[in-house]
């Protein structure tokens, strides 16, 4: 691996994320652990979205639905555990397993219908499905309806991991993020990933070569949904609160923003994007109550001028670096 400003930046970012709780404890600001924990969870969501959006070119505008499914698995399980005394329902492993099953099922159904369409229709139909599930959650009075559910305890991992402590939950999130990054790295460099990426640049050609593109895209869609479902489980544990607004369409939009802001179709782009997004939110809302007044136009400017997102800028920096690097010039001599 050649060191370049981009690689150095990413390494520092990941190492930095690894020591956040230690620093936060050292400086006596545990608030930052919680804030960065949110970044990690949304990073997982963005990484999973990037699989289909960045590498597969499928603009899913309903990705937050899986966050919702994962969250509700925790919310419903914990509610029954606390109110009805069914303790096994608060088991974290079980909740993750259920989140995987239901996210995959939802992904299968949504994908099977929406992948029949292309372009703007695909965007709209994924959006519509997410709104549909949003209304299911809103209308479901038994599980909190519009008000949502408060969690009186976090998931129980058989005593293996005690996530009632914010720091250990942070490291659970961190490990999950690393796993999802590793998985997506393996996936996009596999034959399967090549096919998905090929279908993005020229679907007809992929089909002409003889690949059943639809099936591959559907599998990618399901995998992305499943990973995001796990992020939902973590998210519910983080906020100790579940309500329908996790799967509101604006939340799906935010996931897309994070992915694009960081850099579409790059491994670490979504992580950079999620961190940058939440930083901006925190920073701007600290300055003014009307932070979206600045955030909105910034988004427009990023879309118009900074194609490739932050990662794209880092790549540009790399190119500038390699042109002007003294080391390289010496090598040439």
């Amino acid at each position, binding site marked *: 691996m050649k060191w370049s400003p981009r690689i150095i930046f990413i390494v520092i970012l990941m190492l930095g994320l690894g020591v956040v709780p230690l620093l936060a404890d050292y400086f006596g600001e545990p608030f930052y652990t919680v804030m960065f924990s949110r970044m990690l969870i949304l990073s997982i969501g963005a990484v999973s979205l990037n699989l289909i959006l960045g590498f597969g070119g499928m603009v899913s505008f309903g990705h937050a639905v899986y966050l919702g499914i994962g969250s509700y698995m925790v919310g419903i399980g914990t509610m029954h555990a606390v109110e009805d005394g069914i303790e096994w329902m608060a088991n974290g492993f079980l909740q993750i397993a259920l989140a995987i099953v239901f996210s995959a099922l939802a992904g299968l159904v949504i994908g099977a219908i929406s992948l*029949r369409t292309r372009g*703007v229709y695909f965007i709209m139909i994924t959006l519509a499905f997410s709104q549909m599930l949003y209304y299911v959650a*809103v*209308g479901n009075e038994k599980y909190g309806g519009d008000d949502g559910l408060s969690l009186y305890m976090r998931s129980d991992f058989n005593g293996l991991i005690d996530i009632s402590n914010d720091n250990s939950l942070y490291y659970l999130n961190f490990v999950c993020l690393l796993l999802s990054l590793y998985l997506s790295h393996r996936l996009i460099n596999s034959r399967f990933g090549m096919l998905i990426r090929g279908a993005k640049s020229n679907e007809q050609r992929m089909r002409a070569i003889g690949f059943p593109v639809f099936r591959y895209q559907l599998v990618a869609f399901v995998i992305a949904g499943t990973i995001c479902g796990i992020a939902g489980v973590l998210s519910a544990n983080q906020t100790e609160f579940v309500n329908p607004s996790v799967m509101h369409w604006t939340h799906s939009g935010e996931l897309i*923003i994070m992915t*694009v802001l960081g850099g579409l179709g790059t491994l670490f782009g979504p992580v950079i994007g999620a961190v940058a997004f939440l930083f901006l939110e925190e920073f701007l809302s600290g300055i003014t109550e009307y932070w979206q*007044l600045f955030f909105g136009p910034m988004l427009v400017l990023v879309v118009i001028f900074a194609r490739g997102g932050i990662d794209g800028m880092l790549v540009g920096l790399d190119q500038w670096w390699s042109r002007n690097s003294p080391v390289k010039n010496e090598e040439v001599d």
Partner: protein
Amino acid sequence: MEQTLNGFQFGILLFLLAAGLTLIFGIMDLINLAHGSLYMMGAYFAATFIKWTGSFLLGAILAIPACMAFGMIVEMIALRTLYTRNHLDQVLATFGLILFFNEFVRLLWGPIGLDIPLPEVLNGSVELFLGIRYPAFRLVIIAVGILVAFLLYLLVSRTKLGMLIRAGASNRQMVGALGVNINLLYTFVFGLGAALAGLAGLMAGPIMTVEIGMGEGILIITLVVIVIGGVGSIKGAFVAALLVGLIDTVGRSFLPDILGIFFSNDVADTAAPAISSMLIYLLMALILAFKPQGLFPPRGA
């Protein structure tokens, strides 16, 4: 009967929004998520002008050109560079605009919603026939909507401008090559869409409350409408808007009773609200599963 009329009236409002959105999409190939914000601006402009002038009619008449001008300015500043971009970029940029407009409105008008008071004439109800009474203002909405639909039809199919719009939709390079000022045409079409959205907003204002974010819920339903109707088709938008309006309204009022026939009242009462808000999405999924291009796919697309 009353619910059917309500559904019809909701459908008309949806049509006003959908017509603008589908025109903008069909001609400029732009997904404008900020269309709901234009609807919101229409309602806020109307509320302000009505308070200013003290007259409902005058305020309403002022609000429409204001909204049109507003839309044109937005188009010239922010959206013009997006036409050649892919849909993802457009979705993101217009999403950014939504955030901006919501805060903008909060800054100017405050976080609390406004009311649009109706004049005495429109506040009562009218006896239709067989003793059925119906709110006068809702009838006005239906009448205005049908009139606008008719005018829009005339504009698009009978005038020179309409010819340019249709020509621009099917081959924009050619229209540009023939010496038509495409930029101006686009700005005008966007302004027209904004005016229609503003009209919808000002008419929805007195029925619902004028508040921040009022455009977002209805935007999604409008998107469902144009997708069902076939993106780019005004006829499709009209049919789909009425269909969606009727199904949504009638579903909400009758579904509890219908479910009550088959299930216990308890189940019906809890399931009905959820299912009735899902109905239009189910309709859309069903239609797209059979006709991936919508009911009236535009020719040549």
